[in-house]
């Protein structure tokens, strides 16, 4: 268990032409599950690789447990990493894969065997030890990769989109497994993903990345309910937050908070919604329409939960509303949060 910290980290590629990481400061808590979330090309994987020691930062420091490790090779950092492809050694058996880090650390054979069995038991892959990686399913490969990471007693787990190679059905159960696994071993984990569902489901905290910068860091509820800027507001949430321009600011509200006026009570902001299209998705109704009455007429989305049974037809205009405590305001020029 450890605290990983990066300070003033900058990573440039192509001799300064591309700035993948743009002075990032970030620290995990002990035993925390920190998720780095962002669109592809935002620098989150580069940050993970820099923490691992596979990339050298242009400037700035990487610290693990208050020790500067910036210029140490990966093997001196006591970290374990699970790659997107899992990177299992195809010519070695599952057991050979799992004990490889122990052999590299010159652990004696009995201890190696004991640790490998312990890790395999924890992940439920004892029966696969004699197989080769190509004989395994995607989910089994992930577990082997985790076991290989686990045997070294790393201070930190680094996971680079470990679920993206699995098919959609498997992903949900694999996600659940990852979470349970981390809770069991309690090791600090940094997890990179572009999938907000994974981030919301796994993270104790989420750091939202864009263009090499951390836009916001906080627990899932905080980044969802109180986004720091319009990027976070629209990147997280599906469908994303509605943003209605109103003079120098933007009025933001989540689709699930835009409801028929009749079902809301309390202090609400009135909105006229001209419904153009309706989608019926897993019990919810998604309404696509134009909002008027609060700033410029804007295309917005409303998500009506199954519990709201008000009849809605495309082509009609309805009285909708948003509770005032659900409304968020942003500066139109900078995109940052402002107060009302």
């Amino acid at each position, binding site marked *: 268990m450890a605290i990983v910290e990066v300070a003033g980290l900058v990573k440039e590629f192509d001799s300064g032409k591309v700035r993948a990481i743009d002075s990032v400061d970030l620290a995990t808590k002990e035993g925390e599950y920190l998720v780095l979330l962002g669109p592809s090309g935002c620098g989150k994987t580069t940050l993970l690789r820099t923490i*691992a*020691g*596979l990339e050298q930062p242009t400037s700035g420091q990487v610290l693990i447990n208050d020790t500067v490790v910036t210029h140490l*090779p*990966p*093997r001196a950092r006591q*970290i*374990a*990493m699970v*790659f*997107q*492809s899992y*990177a299992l*050694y*195809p*010519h070695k058996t599952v057991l050979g894969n799992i004990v*490889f*880090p122990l*052999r*590299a*650390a010159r652990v004696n054979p009995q201890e190696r065997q004991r640790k490998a069995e312990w890790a395999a038991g924890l992940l439920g892959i004892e029966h696969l030890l004699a197989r080769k990686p190509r004989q395994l399913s995607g989910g089994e490969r992930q577990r082997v990769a985790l076991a*290989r990471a686990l045997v*070294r007693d790393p201070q930190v787990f680094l996971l680079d989109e470990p679920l993206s190679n699995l098919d959609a059905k498997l992903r949900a159960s694999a996600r659940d497994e990852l979470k349970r696994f981390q809770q069991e071993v309690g090791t600090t984990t940094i997890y990179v993903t572009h999938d907000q569902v994974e981030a919301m489901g796994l993270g104790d905290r989420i750091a939202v990345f864009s263009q090499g910068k951390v836009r916001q860091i906080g627990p899932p509820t905080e980044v969802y309910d109180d986004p720091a800027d319009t990027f976070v507001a629209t990147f997280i949430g599906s469908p994303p937050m509605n943003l209605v321009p109103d003079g120098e600011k933007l009025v933001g509200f989540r689709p699930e908070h835009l409801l028929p006026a009749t079902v809301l009570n309390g202090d609400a902001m009135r909105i006229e919604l001209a419904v153009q299209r309706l989608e019926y998705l897993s019990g919810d109704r998604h309404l696509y329409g134009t909002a008027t009455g609060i700033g410029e007429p804007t295309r917005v989305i409303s998500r009506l939960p199954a519990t709201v049974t008000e009849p809605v037809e495309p082509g009609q205009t309805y009285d909708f509303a948003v509770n005032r405590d659900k409304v968020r305001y942003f500066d139109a020029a900078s995109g940052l949060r402002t107060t009302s």
Partner: protein
Amino acid sequence: MKAKIADRDGALAWIFLMPSVVYILALVAVPFILAVGLAVSDVTAGDPSFNFVGGKNFEAAFSDPVFWRSLGNTFLFTSVSMVLIVILGKVVANILIADFKGKWFVRFLVLLPWTTPVTLGAISWLWLLDSIYSPIDWVLRQLGFLAPQGNGSNMYWLGEPGLAMLSVIAVHVWRLTPLAAVIMMAGLVAIPKDMDEAARIDGAGWWRRMFEVTIPMTLPVIAVAALFGAIFTFTDMAVVDVLTNGGPNNATQVLTSWAFFRGIDGGDIGQGAAVALFLFPLLMAAAIAILRAVRKLEVH
């Protein structure tokens, strides 16, 4: 609209296959059958009339001690060259994939021996290994390893049996290492970068990564490079012919050169063919081994 010839798959298949069929028949099958026929005949340069003599040519070849010496030399040359070609080829392959300033120039230099025609390369080595004016000897003299003049001032690279063998092997290795390097480079490039990085994270040092990850993963490619190196050494006679002519005293005589001297220079075509035919089972084994290795590559 009428179907054109380009629409008829059956006809097209034959048209496209024809050049290679003709090539294989005319330049592989016919000479091979001819060689088998000549090996059991008494055809000589002076008397080309065909008379069947059975295994007489083989008997004559086997009873000649030079044949056995050539066979032994062939195996020695081939195995030593192959090992050196693979080891040096691997080293050069690592240089070829490395990223550094001026790498195009290094790549160019590395590939040069392979692109040079064999005979031209061998002739320049003939000069480098000259008994009196060898630049290598000159360097050794300057470094004090050889006497400045008189006795012991020259190595006679191609005149001493051991040194002659060493020289021929060295030239083969020089010539074939680039080919092996390029083949192995292709194998190295195909390894996912993740593998090496995972091994680095797992705490493996350079040697462990090389011997436990890189080499096992490129083993089929290494096998292909080794077999190509072996076949090209095994079947080559230009280097021996130019450098030593099989000498001194048959110390560098190999099967190919012996077949040539017997059959073409000596005029005993039947016996030349018999000696040459002896290469066939060995080459066939090598070809099967190559195909197997390639098959293994495809499976991965």
